[in-house]
């Protein structure tokens, strides 16, 4: 168990996640207070990655629930294994099974665990859990309300079986891209942390940590280029994920510095909309390159 904010920070960095102190404090408190942690921020700033890295750091199993509109209890919580139930009934009919077993087709044996139940139930396997509820803003209000119930006391009631509650509360990490407002009731039950685009120094550190064999100058150029791009008005601004993709792409293409040709060839790594790429090529490329101070 991590016993201080520093330890969290160091452990995360050991797993190659550059983690600033506010974030580390949030994670540490989430563990200590056993509260869910809500991350908001633009796409690609490393919200989901936090959960993955935390699972590694804590040596816990990661259970991920990807949200989408129409996500319901049968997909998030549990479902009965109908084919198995039918087979059991048929077997009983043909006399190959004792009759009593038909009573038990609504037992745990026939239960298919979905992520939320798995996260609550898995203590029976002596396993601690990191539960990642990804992109909650994609789900609908009904699911949010349902989640509220589950997260408030970490227990689930299945009519046929009874109430199941978690022995050890999992570390719950919820992420949102803010495409929709999350309800206040859910927010107030969580610790909140906003992840912003990284500063130049942080981004440089992330690039050199994740890609250790990158050339120093290239890393420097990539990061300052990205900082300039984020200052411009694009439909989707590139996140840190794009920076890393781009850096890897440039390495694969054996580039050791940025020039106009290299940027134009690989623009698809950082901008993902036709309009953005067009705008970049027509208007912004020069200013972004000149910001590097070394136009090809």
């Amino acid at each position, binding site marked *: 168990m991590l016993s201080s*904010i520093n330890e969290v920070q160091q452990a995360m960095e050991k797993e190659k996640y550059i983690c600033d*102190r*506010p974030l580390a*404090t*949030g994670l*540490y*408190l989430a563990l*200590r*207070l056993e*509260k869910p*942690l*809500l991350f*908001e921020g633009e796409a690609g700033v490393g919200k989901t990655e936090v959960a993955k890295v935390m699972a590694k750091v804590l040596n816990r199993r990661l259970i991920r629930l990807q949200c989408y509109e129409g996500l319901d209890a049968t997909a998030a919580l549990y479902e*009965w294994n*109908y084919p198995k*139930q*039918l087979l059991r*009934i*048929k077997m*009983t*009919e043909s006399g190959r099974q004792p009759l009593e077993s*038909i009573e038990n*087709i609504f037992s745990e044996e026939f239960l298919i665990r979905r992520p939320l139940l798995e996260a609550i139930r898995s203590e029976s396997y002596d396993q601690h859990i990191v539960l990642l509820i990804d992109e909650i*803003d*994609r789900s*609908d*209000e009904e699911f949010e309300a349902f989640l509220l119930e589950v997260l408030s006391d970490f227990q689930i009631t299945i009519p046929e079986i009874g109430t199941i509650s978690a022995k050890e509360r999992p570390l719950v990490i919820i992420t949102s891209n*803010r*495409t*929709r*407002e999350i309800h*206040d009731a859910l*927010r*107030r*039950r*969580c*610790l*909140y*942390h*906003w992840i912003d685009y990284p500063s130049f120094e942080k981004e440089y550190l992330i690039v050199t940590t994740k890609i250790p064999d990158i050339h120093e100058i290239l890393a420097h150029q990539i990061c300052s280029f990205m900082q300039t791009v984020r200052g411009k008005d694009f*439909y989707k601004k590139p996140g840190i994920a794009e920076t890393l993709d781009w850096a890897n792409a440039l390495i694969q293409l054996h580039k050791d510095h940025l020039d106009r040709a290299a940027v134009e060839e690989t623009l698809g790594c950082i901008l993902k909309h036709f309009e953005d790429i067009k705008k970049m090529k027509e208007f912004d490329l020069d200013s972004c390159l000149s910001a590097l101070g070394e136009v090809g």
Partner: protein
Amino acid sequence: MIYPDFNLLKNVLLFSQALRKRRIGVTINNVLDALRGVSFIDISQKDDFYNLLKSNFVSHREETEAFDELFNYFWSYEKKTEPFFKKMVEENVDSFKKNEEVLGFKYEKSQSLMKDWTDEELENNRLKEQKNVPGYSPEEILRHKDFGHLQMAELEKVRELVSSISQKMAKALSRRWKRGKRGGQLDFRKTIRQSIKYGGEMIELRMKEQKLKPLRLILVCDVSGSMDIYGQFFLLFMHGLQNHYPHCETFVFSTRLSQVTFLLKSRTFDETLPFLSEKVLDWSGGTNIGAALHQLRRRHSEPLHANRTLLLIFSDGWDRGDAVLLDREMRNLKKQLKRLIWLNPLLGSRYYQPLCKGMSTILPYLDYFLPCHNFLNLRNLCNLISKM
């Protein structure tokens, strides 16, 4: 667990109260969790303490600024609690004053309080604050809107009407969409349950059907200078709708677009107005519809993609922005949305023709182009929406 000493507890409580005054809705559970958290961190580290309180008390990015300001004020080492109480009283004076402006009548009490507490220092601070309103562009007129001229009695009347209309509409919508039946699926769970009493033979089939969802509404209100007289009227409508109809997002714009869903929700209209004029800095500025719609499409694209979204724009169409941009944005919106409704208060005049450049650009893309200058129009609009 180590209990924090009494002083700190009291201070955190006071701090949470001050936050509530700033409309950061801290719950008692948040306070308890923050206090529990105190025993896990080293509170001599101010940054850690700040992060602890922030992660517990802040739940919106928009609250960060107010939180930071208050945190720096409250937990400063110079003067302990004294200035805080002074500040609280000062805030009370402010809110009294605001109420006065909104409601149009005077509080005797606030007057006497103001006499007691408005010393020179406070006055100077206030002047400083006014000067510090951040500027965005020279074209924008940055000023706090005076809502004074809506009288108390009028407000009351308007409020009643709007809330009844929006309630009706919310109901009409949800009823309509719940009734719909689209085939059905076999409900295995219930069917198997049912089959047990027949020894596993599925005799009674149980079906389940998909619930339909109500329309999603996006309300966009023009609050530029030319819309001054009508703006408040539509704001009332937006406020009523936002609080009675859950599937609704609200925005206001003049040169820039601001999302006000969060500001309108769960506040009374009286509370909302001063808050709105404070937050929306380009109130009564110029008009740039194209840029505002562009922002809407970029920043809030998710609800727009759903083809059951209804966009209501309330504006007179006097656009000073780029017509090409406006045309492009309207075309894109038309592609994405179920219905585009434009409410123009000027349409009420018999002599009005949509000749101005903005309006003639917009017109081809609209599903409905409706007048909106009195309550009859509003009621008609509600009927129209509830039939969609």
